[in-house]
């Protein structure tokens, strides 16, 4: 049955994950830990960025460094956008068109229509 199969699959998958990542993905609290890790990493980056861009520690950083650091969030965003665009373009360019299969399928549809019409079906 569907539910039983789904449950068994879920169990198998989770036990597999526990083998691959021991201790880390123990059923509950997975999302929380990951979220915390992300938040921690992002806030760390933000602090480093603010320290560099606005020289909060009065380290007398050269103005050039601050000029480079200041637009870094926008730069990362634009880089991510460019990367996404490039991936989309690459996937479009190397997409696997199945023209042979399409022709075959169209032929099958045509044959089926003719067959049905012969048997007196109107559509």
């Amino acid at each position, binding site marked *: 049955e569907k539910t039983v199969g789904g449950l068994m699959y879920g169990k198998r998958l989770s036990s597999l994950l526990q083998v691959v990542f021991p201790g880390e993905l123990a059923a509950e609290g997975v999302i929380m830990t990951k979220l915390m890790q992300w938040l921690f990493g992002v806030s760390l980056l933000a602090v480093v960025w603010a320290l560099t861009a606005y020289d909060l520690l009065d380290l007398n950083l050269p103005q050039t460094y601050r000029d480079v650091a200041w*637009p870094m969030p926008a730069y990362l965003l634009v880089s991510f956008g460019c990367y996404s665009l490039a991936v989309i373009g690459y*996937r479009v*360019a190397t997409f696997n068109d199945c023209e042979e299969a399409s022709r075959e399928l169209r032929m099958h549809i045509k044959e089926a229509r003719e067959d049905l019409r012969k048997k007196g079906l109107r559509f």
Partner: protein
Amino acid sequence: QATGADQAVGFGLVAFSLLLFAYYSVWVVVLPFVDGDHVLNKYFLPREYSVILPGVAALALLLFVGTFITAVMWKNRSPKKVD
């Protein structure tokens, strides 16, 4: 194997994104290390636009996506089911 038009569009997108990335990298990362009166400065807008323009573009994109989703949802709204 993709068709010729698909390939052209796809590699065009790749080329465009690479070009954009290169230009923006030079603008943001290299230009601060170049003297103020160097020839290179002629080809770039003032620095503050390196944040303003992407911001405007992001806003326009969000607006477009929002209107698009709204329009599609509006068109596909199903009539109320009668129990």
